[in-house]
């Protein structure tokens, strides 16, 4: 389709966009507020006005809202037309009537879309003499700050929070000149996606509360392309640093992964980097059991001597980079490389990887475009939040497509589509062990123990394909549900099955695989999606190794006497008794980590590891996508990347630069073939220059360290990457994987991301970051046999894990905001068992499980099935349990609580 803008001819490759998107993609700066690349058009703000002319002879034209206009063949458009400009300037003037002129004290200042558009639209003088309307602000909890006077009524916040993310506690109150965006009453925002308000709001109404405590303007932040470390999805991020501390995290767009959003764990979990628990020196245990600082050289000499027995075992880490795990494996040799996982978790990680090798896994974008969903067992809102956000879009995908086709509504016309679809949902089947925050999407969530959920999955596969094994003795209700699910998935154009390891059931993974295999036989669009527990769980699985029970065996049979533990707290991964035995059996223990924890407390020698903020490395996400994360700032010696510590201990190996270890990895295994090409090489230059991590307006470079020395220090060298720890460098937009922030002339806010995309919401210029490194086999997938539910322990109650987005992840709980939102330990019972035991909500109960007794308050949750109970998983204040497992609950007088060793 050809259109003319300012009398220049353009060929639109995709005519399904609106005129605003077309103009932005072609490089025209059309201002807008209410349109958003994902939330699309509602035509509320009138800021995107342009002139459209019928044909060459038409000299008058008419003003249209470009976000509400479909381009038409031969259409003539003017953005710069005088009337259109005046119209836009008036709209801004009108919006500014009530907007406070408080940019200097506004946290949005310097990266404010309202500032940008005001300048673009040319409104410079206030004529109104009347008082401005004012509002009372709300305390919205520890993450998001509220300043309603700055609101320009674009409705983006509520469209994201309520309409897109399913939040129930933010709305728009009032009418005409008194609309108010907020909660019905003050209180913490309930949605785990609340932090996106900070980016979605074009002005300073919603701002980052964690940033406020150590405020820095965008132009003063040193930033780099990074990857979130707080779950297995690998969302892309921009952490920002100044004065030696990390200040905030913003979304880095990745079309296939997180799109334009992050979850609150990913956005606010960063403060562990600044935690007082950081290990900043090499530490050696003394005779009196205290740790004393030693120099890096001394630490390396000591470590080498501890390793000299030649009987050292290495424990890799699901939260350390591929590089660090690889370096450890090289140091100890592959046969002495182990995973820090209990038997059950180790099994699940192996099964997940084998499924990744069999099926093409869905990216989050694939997920959001599915038209029928079967969510089997995984509580994604708590284990993989952005996946929950994608599933929410999948749930409305089918009715939206249907209504759009029926009523001929273009896909961008959000206002019309929402009205047409109302509350209708597409096929969405949810089977879980307890309540989830996606329950509202499913007509009737199915609740059962993990084994029964797996049985349902196997039955669905059998109903889809009789060649898939049947499930004996399935209750009639489950059999009937299985038939319905199968029929629905079968008739869907893009069906999706989602599962994961967090229920602790391998059978569940097998059941999901059977469904995917059965669907795949007839529908190549069918997809499987699996979560992964940590940011590099899949990367660790690619480096095979035994489990913690194997470690104990090796220590006991004398084949090993020294342990080197890489970035993991073993007490979070296995029963404390087993871990204690391991540490007792080991003669020497060396731990490399960034935060003091129960495992570093058992170490003889502790080496300080760089966090993601100070190190560059590769992480493999849940779908097998390897992505590079770049250091935001250099580590402060002696802190360094774990792989550098390990390399220093390895004889006959020299990997001075990142590229060297990547090259060694690439030849070590077919899986790592591509690790050298995930981003531009270290010698990549843009017109002969490096890419600056600091914006060109970075201020105070000399003043910052003047209290130490008035001479400005030379910027730290970065030999590993094409990025520089400096404001000098190329002003051009770097290729996708190297973009350190979004900024371009006139676009100070992150809205300018479209200047880095090939087209609005399209791939990044110069290539999307990362690459999927696991090739699924082309062989037709076979079927797993249903296994009867196995459960350890005895007792009348089956305990399953309840994951918490805030609290169940190791690092983010060291952020004050996240810690505030994390739950206190509890045990959840269904109403039936609570009634039987005479337990009321909040009453203290005694839990007996895996040889331990815990005193916990009870929660009564409607959705917990009879005979089951849920125990919060991986909370800092609860010991590790391998769940599901059987135990009991009683109302007996509480015994003294047992904590972590």
């Amino acid at each position: 389709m050809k259109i003319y803008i300012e009398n220049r001819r353009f060929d639109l490759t995709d005519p399904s966009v609106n005129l605003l998107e077309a103009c932005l993609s072609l490089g025209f700066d059309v201002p807008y507020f209410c349109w958003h690349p994902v939330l699309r058009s509602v035509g509320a703000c009138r800021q995107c006005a342009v002139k459209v002319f019928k044909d060459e002879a038409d000299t008058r034209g008419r003003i249209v809202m470009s976000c509400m206009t479909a381009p038409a063949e031969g259409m003539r458009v003017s953005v710069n037309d005088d009337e259109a400009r005046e119209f836009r300037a008036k709209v801004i003037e009108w919006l500014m009537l009530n907007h406070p002129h408080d940019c200097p004290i506004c946290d949005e200042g310097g990266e404010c879309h309202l500032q940008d558009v005001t300048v673009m639209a040319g409104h410079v003088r206030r004529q109104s003499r009347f008082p401005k309307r004012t509002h009372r602000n709300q305390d919205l909890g520890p993450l998001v700050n509220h300043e309603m006077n700055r609101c320009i009524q674009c409705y983006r916040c509520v469209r994201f929070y309520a309409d897109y993310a399913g939040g129930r506690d933010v709305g728009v109150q009032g009418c005409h000149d008194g609309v108010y965006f907020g909660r019905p009453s003050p209180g913490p925002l309930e949605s785990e996606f609340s932090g996106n308000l900070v980016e979605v709001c074009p002005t300073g109404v919603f701002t980052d509360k964690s940033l406020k405590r150590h405020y820095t303007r965008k132009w003063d932040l040193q930033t780099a392309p990074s990857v979130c470390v707080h779950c297995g999805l690998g969302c892309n991020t921009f952490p920002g640093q100044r004065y030696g501390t990390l200040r905030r995290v913003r979304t880095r767009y990745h079309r296939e992964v997180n799109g334009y959003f992050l979850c609150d764990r990913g956005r606010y979990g960063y403060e562990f980097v600044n935690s007082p628990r950081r290990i900043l020196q090499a530490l050696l245990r003394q005779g009196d059991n205290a740790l004393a600082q030693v120099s890096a050289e001394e630490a390396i000499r000591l470590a080498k001597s501890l390793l000299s027995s030649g009987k050292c075992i290495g424990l890799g880490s699901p939260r350390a980079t591929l590089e660090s795990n690889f370096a450890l494996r090289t140091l100890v040799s592959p046969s002495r490389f182990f995973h820090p996982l209990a038997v059950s978790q180790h099994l699940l990680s192996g099964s997940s990887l084998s499924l990744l090798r069999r099926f093409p896994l869905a990216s989050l974008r694939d997920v959001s475009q599915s038209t029928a969903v079967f969510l089997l067992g995984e509580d994604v809102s708590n284990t993989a939040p952005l996946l929950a956000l994608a599933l929410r879009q999948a749930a409305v995908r089918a009715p939206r497509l249907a209504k759009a086709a029926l009523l001929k509504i273009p896909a961008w016309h959000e206002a019309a589509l929402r009205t047409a679809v109302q509350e209708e949902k597409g096929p969405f089947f949810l089977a879980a062990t307890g309540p989830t925050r996606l329950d509202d999407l499913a007509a009737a969530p199915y609740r059962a123990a993990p084994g029964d959920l797996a049985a349902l999955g196997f039955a669905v596969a059998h109903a889809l394909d009789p060649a898939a094994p049947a499930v004996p003795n399935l209750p009639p209700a489950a059999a009937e549900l299985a038939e319905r699910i199968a029929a629905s998935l079968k008739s869907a154009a893009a069906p999706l099955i989602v599962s994961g390891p967090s229920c602790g059931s391998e059978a569940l993974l097998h059941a999901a695989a059977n469904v995917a295999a059965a669907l795949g036989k007839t529908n190549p669009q069918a997809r499987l999606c699996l979560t992964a527990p940590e940011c590099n769980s899949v990367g660790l699985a690619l480096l095979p190794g035994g489990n913690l029970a194997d470690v104990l065996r090796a220590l006991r049979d004398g084949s090993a006497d020294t342990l080197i533990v890489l970035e993991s707290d073993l007490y979070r991964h296995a029963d404390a008794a087993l871990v204690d035995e391991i540490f007792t059996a080991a003669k020497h223990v060396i731990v490399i980590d960034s935060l003091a924890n129960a495992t570093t407390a058992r170490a003889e020698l502790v080496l300080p590891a760089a966090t993601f903020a100070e190190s560059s490395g590769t992480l493999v996400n849940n779908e097998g996508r390897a992505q590079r994360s770049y250091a935001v700032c250099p580590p402060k010696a002696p802190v360094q990347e774990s792989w550098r510590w390990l390399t220093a201990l390895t004889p006959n190996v020299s990997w001075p630069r990142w590229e060297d270890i990547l090259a060694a990895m690439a030849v070590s295994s077919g899986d790592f073939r591509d690790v050298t090409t995930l981003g531009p090489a270290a010698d990549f230059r843009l017109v002969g220059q490096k890419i600056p991590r600091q914006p060109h307006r970075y201020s105070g470079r000399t003043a910052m360290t003047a209290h130490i020395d008035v001479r400005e220090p030379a910027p730290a060298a970065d030999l590993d990457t094409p990025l520089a720890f400096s404001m000098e460098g190329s002003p051009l937009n770097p290729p996708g994987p190297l973009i350190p922030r979004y900024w371009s002339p006139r676009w100070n806010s992150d809205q300018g991301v479209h200047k880095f995309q090939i087209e609005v919401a399209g791939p990044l210029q110069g290539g999307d970051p990362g690459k999927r490194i696991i090739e699924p086999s082309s062989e037709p997938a076979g079927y797993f046999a249903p296994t009867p539910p196995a459960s350890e322990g005895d007792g009348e109650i089956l305990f399953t894990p309840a994951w918490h987005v805030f609290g169940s992840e190791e690092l983010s709980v060291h952020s004050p905001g996240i810690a505030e939102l994390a739950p206190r330990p509890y045990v959840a019972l269904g109403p039936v068992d609570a009634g039987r035991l005479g337990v009321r909500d909040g009453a203290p109960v005694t839990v007996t499980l895996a040889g331990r007794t815990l005193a916990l308050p009870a929660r009564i949750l409607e959705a917990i099935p009879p005979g089951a109970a849920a125990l919060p998983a991986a909370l800092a204040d609860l010991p590790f349990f391998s769940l599901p497992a059987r135990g009991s609950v009683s109302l007996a007088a509480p015994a003294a609580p047992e904590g972590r060793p």
Partner: protein
Amino acid sequence: MLTDHDKQEIQAELARTPSRRGALIEALRVVQRRAGWVSNADVVEVAAFLGLPVSQAEDVATFYSMIFRQEVGRHVILLCDSVSCWVNRADALLTHLRSRLGIRLGQTTADGRFTLLPAACLGACDRGPVMKVDEDLHTHLTAEKIDRILESYP
């Protein structure tokens, strides 16, 4: 507290609308018909009864000016202040009403008898100036006529 009668009426409304959200306005009106106005607690209860988030109910309950969110008097006077009535000197009638009742727009008389509110066009422009008292429309108003009308609302 929602009464049983309220619940029945809301239930009946639910049967008429395709979505629970659609029944919100009517549910709020049910409460207002009984109690005269809709309190914060009422909004929470209506939301719970319809199974909707409180914020959705609050949004609707604050959008419509005819859903009263403060206690009102026994009788509510809605004086039209739109163009046709204004042309016919409605502003003088407002002055009269204010001095007669001793209150300003948006206030309630001390004895709790009248609340005075402005209203946008009441759809009787050809008979302006007009006002509504409770459910009754009064047209061709004059100061004397207003005095007489007020007498009929004890």
